[in-house]
Structure formats: C-alpha cells, structure tokens
C-alpha cells in the first residue's frame, strides 16, 4: 500500500512539475516590442535609409595615438571603435533616424551646439548631435578616462557638414 501511495505521489508531483514548467514564460517588459515588431508589415529598417557604407567617409581620422576600427556597417548605421594603447575608449557611430524617428525628439531639449548642430547628452556615457534633422552622430565613452569633453571634441571631428549634404 505504501509503495502504491509513493508511486501515486510521484506521479502527481511529476505532473504538477510538468504542467508548471510547460506554462508560458513569465511576462517580459519587452513583450510589447516583440508583438509590434513581429506584426505583419513591420520592419526596423526602411529601404529609404542611407546605406551604412555611405557614412564611413564622414568619420574622424585617426590622430594623436587614437586608432579607429570600423566594426559594424548595416543599412542606416555605421559604427567604429576608438582605441588608445590597444584599449577601447569610445564608440563612434552615425545612424539614419528614418529607421527610428523617435530618436530626434531628445534634440528638442538641446541647449548647445557643436559646429552649429544641436547636441545633447544621453544616459551616462553618450553625447549626440543631429545633422540635417536626420542623421544622428553619437559618441559613447567606454572608459572613464574618456570624458564628456572628449566626446564633444570627437563629435566636432566628424565631417558634419559633409554628412548634412547626404540628406
């Protein structure tokens, strides 16, 4: 009898475990993005956006021991690492806000400019400028030695005027 009860108990517990482990994942704060981005006809990148390769020539040149390494080149986006003494100190990027229009909203709060273009700080490590109301140029610190001032200096080294003509 005890043996039978043991078997039954194991069976019941096993079933409960199976049911709970097969139930859906707990809700995630990214569920809405998941649903919207998998809806029919949705896309994260539009074909009118500039090719990533067309941005490369507007990046700053290497100087003063800084090395620039291109790392990503996708539709509407190009990225390079900035390295000093072999260490990554910053990430430089240009992106086309046609792919993510809400990115321009933060520039409404801009109180300063770099080479005439509106600039804002974003988060702990980023500074961005908006060129021609369309292209976002961003520098992100990847090391504490690379300060907000450094970010602004490097933003000024991009060929922002050239980029504005791509519009």
């Amino acid at each position: 009898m005890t043996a039978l009860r043991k078997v039954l108990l194991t069976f019941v517990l096993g079933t409960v475990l199976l049911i709970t482990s097969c139930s859906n994942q707990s809700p995630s704060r990214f569920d809405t993005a998941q649903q919207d981005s998998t809806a029919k006809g949705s896309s994260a990148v539009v074909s009118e956006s500039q090719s990533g390769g067309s941005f490369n020539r507007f990046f700053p040149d290497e100087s003063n021991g800084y090395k620039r390494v291109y790392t990503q080149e996708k539709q509407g986006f190009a990225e390079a690492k900035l390295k000093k003494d072999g260490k990554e100190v910053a990430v430089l990027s240009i992106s086309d806000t046609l792919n993510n229009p809400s990115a321009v909203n933060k520039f409404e709060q801009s109180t300063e400019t770099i080479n005439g273009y509106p600039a804002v700080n974003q988060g702990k490590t980023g500074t961005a400028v908006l060129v021609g109301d369309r292209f976002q140029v961003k520098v992100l610190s990847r090391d504490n030695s690379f300060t907000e001032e450094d970010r602004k200096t490097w933003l000024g080294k991009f060929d922002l005027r050239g980029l504005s003509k791509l519009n």
Partner: protein
Amino acid sequence: MNKPIFELVNELPTNNVTVMMLRSLDFVVPGEWQNIVGFENTIREVTGETDEEMIQAIGDRAVWLYNDKSQGYQRAMWLYQTVDRADSALGAAALANKVGDKIPLVGGLLSRVTPNPDKAQAIDLTIKLVVELVAFCQINGIPGDSIGDFVAALGEYSGESLMRMAALVCVDGLIPLGPDFILKAQSTLNNLSPQDLSSNPAFSRVSSLIPGGNARGQLDFIGESFDSVKGWMANFVNQRDLTPEKVFSRLQSFIEFSESKLDYVAAFLDMTTNYYEHTGTQTLAARLIERALAEI
C-alpha cells in the same frame, strides 16, 4: 515561431557542461570571457547604463532589429544554433553523475560516446570556422563572402568571441586532431570531393547558408576561408604555446578520464557542449545592443 531574443539570452545557462568547459579554457584567453546571461543584465554590462527608461528603450530597439529578418541577426543565430549538435540528455546525465566537482568519464557515460574519425573531425573544424565567418558578416554587415575583412576582424576579436575561437582551436582542433591539427585539416580539405562534403552531417546542417552556389563552389569557399584563417590559428597556438597536453590537463578540472581514453574526451565534449550557440548568442546580443544604443 522564432523565440524572442530576450528569451534566448535569458535562457542561457549559468552552469552546465558548456560553461564548465569554457571556464576551464580561461587560461588560453585570460579574463576575456564572463558568462553574462539575461537580456537586461547584458544591456547593463554592454552599455554601462542603469537608467530604467534607457534600458527599456535600448531593449525595445534591439528586439525590433532582431525581428527584422532583412538585418541578418536571425540567420546568424540559426547558424550558431545549428552547427552545434549537443545531446542535452547526455549532458544532463553527465551532470547527474558528477562526483564532487568532476564528471567521471566512465561506465555508462563512456559507452554512449563514440569518437569521430579524423576526417569527420577535420571537416567539423573547417565548417565551424566558416560558420563563424558567415555569422560575423551577418551580424556586422560585411558582404557574405568577404574573407579578407573577416581575417582583419579576427585580430580585433575579444570577449566571448575570442573565447569561442579559443574553444574551437582547443576542443575541435588540438584535442581531437593533435598538435598538427591545421595540417591535418588542410590535407583533409585538399582531398575532399564535393560528394564527401555533401555527405558530412555538420555541412548538411548549415549548407543552405554557406556561399558558393553548389557543393563544388561551397568546397572552394571553405578551402579559401580555411587558407586565409590558418595563419591566424597557427599564431594563436604558437603565441600561447598551446599543446594538447596543456588543454587536457585543464579539462581535468571538471572531467575525470584515464590516459587510455583521450579519444573519448573530444567526442564527449562534442556531444555535451554547445559553446558556439552559447557564446554566439552572447556575441549577437552584445552587437545588437550596441547598435540599438547608437540608434535610439
């Protein structure tokens, strides 16, 4: 339906045979790999941001980018997932049999493992290398057959990507094929016919995404890829003075095996680990999050 990227990253294990193996290989690339799991955690690690609104915006954009099939991320994920062929039941059995911190490679466990012949192992190594090349290009956006760009980028590999290459060299090269694994792989490729390639299981699984058009063209692509990467691999081994003995001795931190069963160690790891999928998911998530941060 494909799993959301946040689920894939959330479900990465914190400790299994794959993680134990990668930890034991830390001596090859000291400090490069931390087992970062969890999507939000990855966002915090990659970006250094702690503001909840920022984390939400970055994560949302990353989800959108991943789900846009034109962006290549899902193809890369499929490649990383498909090239591994871990037998999760065997992995679980191995963990269940642990004595202290070690898995004894004996008895029933041993009988379920069959060593690969050298030829199949050499093909596996070259296929994994080509998968890395194609996945790299899908993630970072360089045209799919740009071997030169990939070789230049290898020199810049760090973190989990460098650990993946370290594991490839150790576990799919040095351990199963010995110290002259590069020569062995090269000579296998030189003598391989398109028919041989087509009948290899590792190739069949991923062939739809290997450039080249047909088996002949794909064999050429694999040959050229291997040719251009072998110098990098040889340097990697020489600079670190890596030998099968050194790797075996580190693997003994979590598997117990006798000298007479060395053949079985590579086969056991091949069947119980999915280090390409594990570190590939970490690489993909990191690049996706970097791009999302730049675009928001």
